[in-house]
């Protein structure tokens, strides 16, 4: 052990000398393309994931199918968040990315555009058939390639305090127009309370709402990207929320703060536009309100619509740095399509599976404990998941998301025009793409 350490240390010195001599050679390190594919013999893979309990799910693989195929997977638990993409890309730059990574759908184009993700179309078998088209399409980026296998999804829903809605004589809004009226009605009856808040600290929520309205933020035609962040559909959404904030019908403070938790817990805010994973968040944020909430489909833009957006959700991808892409793809497919694996993922990791058949399987027959008053919670959730609108992600979602936080944060604070903030988002995103050299047509 000490010997090994000393050897490594002397290696640093040696390398440093080499690097110094090479001057900027450091920068030139890219990923090697050589592929020592499909060798026989045992294979061991590393997997960066933030899903809790993933090590237990992976144990099932290592003791079952993995043992048979001599493929061992090791979990390296990470923190989720936007910076993880940077961490993966930094590791990739050094050729040291793990074999498998967990990635949110909107991060896939960024990763692909950095050549960090391998095309595993040939290795995932008939996985496609297990997922709704809208979900699967996110992992192909509209090409013939497959860059990831969907793991979990976050179809959006409307959560409200059943008891307080009754108390204040409110009805569950079926359309956004009714949603606005509900907010106003509540303000009239109880000026201290808010129906909900418009939070500028989570771009995913706004993206999901725009998606529901039919927005297509990034599309391609030929060799060109089209960016439509300020398209008519998104404008409608921005105007709607901006109007509610401006007239004071809803709050404008960010979510996930101690004050927000308290507002939910004490019934100062009585509804939350969220996604299928909301029960978990409510359990910690508002523990005193157990059994008092109910879930309904998201309000619609017109009475006849039946569509929702998604907020959250992630996939399992194989990196180009992996020496064993085929084995890694095999594991990724197993993890997200095998019944036992998905059951364990639901139980240990609390995920809502992307695989359609798993959405009604064993783990989802009973409602979440926090919603014991709504026995058919997961049946409804599965029905809502089917109505998810397709999403359209581009290679610099992170730029759009960051501008969202700043522009909409300022607009929410000043109660000013949200569409101005939206235009800013569009302009920043397009400018960044042009700067990078993407072909863009607005």
């Amino acid at each position: 052990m000490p010997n090994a350490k000393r050897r490594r240390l002397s290696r640093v010195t040696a390398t440093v000398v080499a690097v110094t001599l090479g001057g900027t050679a450091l920068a030139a390190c890219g990923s090697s393309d050589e592929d020592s594919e499909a060798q026989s013999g045992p294979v061991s893979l590393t997997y960066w994931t933030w899903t809790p309990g993933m090590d237990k799910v992976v144990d099932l693989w290592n003791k079952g199918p993995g043992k048979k195929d001599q493929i061992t997977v090791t979990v390296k638990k990470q923190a989720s968040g936007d910076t993880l993409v940077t961490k993966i890309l930094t590791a990739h730059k050094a050729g040291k990315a793990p074999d498998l990574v967990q990635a949110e759908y909107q991060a896939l184009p960024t990763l692909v555009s950095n050549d960090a993700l391998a095309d595993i179309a040939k290795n995932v078998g008939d996985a496609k058939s297990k997922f709704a088209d809208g979900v699967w399409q996110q992992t192909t980026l509209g090409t013939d390639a497959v860059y990831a296998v969907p793991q979990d999804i976050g179809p959006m829903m409307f959560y409200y305090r059943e008891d307080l809605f009754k108390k204040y004589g409110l009805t569950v809004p079926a359309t956004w127009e009714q949603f606005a009226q509900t907010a106003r009605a509540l303000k009239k009856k109880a000026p201290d309370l808010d129906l909900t808040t418009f939070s500028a600290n989570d771009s995913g929520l706004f993206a999901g709402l725009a998606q529901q309205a039919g927005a297509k933020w990034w599309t391609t035609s030929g060799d060109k990207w089209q960016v439509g962040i300020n398209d008519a559909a998104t404008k409608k959404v921005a105007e709607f929320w901006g109007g509610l904030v401006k007239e004071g019908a809803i709050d404008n403070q960010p979510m996930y703060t101690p004050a927000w938790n308290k507002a939910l817990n004490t019934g100062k805010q009585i509804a939350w536009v969220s996604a299928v994973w909301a029960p978990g968040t409510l359990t910690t944020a508002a523990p005193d309100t157990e059994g008092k909430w109910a879930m309904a489909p998201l309000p619609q833009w017109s009475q006849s619509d039946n569509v929702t957006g998604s907020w959250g959700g992630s996939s399992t991808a194989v990196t180009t740095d992996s020496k064993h892409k085929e084995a890694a793809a095999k594991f990724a497919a197993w993890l997200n399509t095998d019944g036992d694996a998905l059951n364990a993922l639901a139980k240990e990791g609390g995920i809502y599976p992307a695989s359609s058949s798993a959405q009604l399987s064993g783990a989802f027959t009973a409602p979440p404990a926090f919603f014991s008053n709504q026995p058919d919670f997961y049946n409804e959730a599965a029905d809502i998941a089917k109505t998810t609108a397709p999403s359209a992600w581009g290679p610099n979602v992170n730029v759009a998301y960051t501008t969202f936080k700043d522009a909409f944060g300022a607009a929410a604070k000043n109660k000013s025009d949200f569409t101005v903030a939206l235009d800013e988002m569009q302009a920043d995103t397009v400018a960044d793409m042009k700067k990078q050299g993407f072909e863009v047509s607005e």
Partner: protein
Amino acid sequence: MKTAARRKSYGVKGAPYALPSPTTTLKRARSAPYFFLVPATILFALFFALPIGYAVWLSFHKVKVSGLGLGAGARKEVWAGLENYTAAITDSELLDSALRVLGYGCIVVPVMLGLALLFALMLDAEKVRLAPFARLAIFLPYAIPGVVAALLWGFLYLPDVSPFYFVLDKLGLPQPDLLDGGPLYLALSNIAIWGGTGFNMIVIYTSLQAIPAEVYEAAKLDGATPLQIALKIKIPMVAPSLVLTFFFSIIATLQVFSEPTTLKPLTNSVSTTWSPLMKVYRDAFGTGDIYAAAAQAVIIAFVTLLLSFGFLRATNRRNKQEAAG
């Protein structure tokens, strides 16, 4: 005997750190300092100079994507010349953030160092009680890990959960919004002062400890009050430490990052580019443009160089003049 001889000899030095050079310098003593500096030099070359060099290299490059930018080989690193620099200099976000930080620094540096000096002198005072407790208490904030900071300050600053608002409410006093406008600067400064005072206090206090008691004896016999001793003897003698704390406080202010980042999730008033370094972080880790981030970092480093080393030079010159005159 030996101790006494040693003690008498120090404390009377004009220059901030330079000792009078040994009059009988031996030959071996000429090479000795270089040997002592070998470890630091190697580590500096490896973990500072090389990475800095690479960051500078990055600042002159950019990424060039072709077509849709998907798949292998679609992304290349190309020479950018001064592009990143001109973009950074003309970026109003960067300038705005610099101005904000200037305002913030005008509160933090004087208050924090003033308190640190005050506390250090009080710790060093005679017949002071509970000094070990206070020393630990004032230092402790520095030891609180940043991971809980957002929660911690959320609980103390957000009106709905803050005990201070609760008290103000009960007393019927006005409840200002701490996380907006001018008070936001106070809220941020408070975090920095809370976290940094103890650190600087310890630096000054340790220097005070090095002053031998004999130095005060004469002054005391002449009937000097503790205040006079503090102002006339103690403060001049810890001047090198004060210079050091000033130097690093200027740098810490220009590179302020954690305080506004802590408050960011709690309020719409703190943007992702509130301070220059937040913008660097956003570009490097948020939007993935490490080239622009590197150029901004070089500019920040340059401004820091001007201000902090300018300050060091100015104090050195003054010291030399004083020593000469």
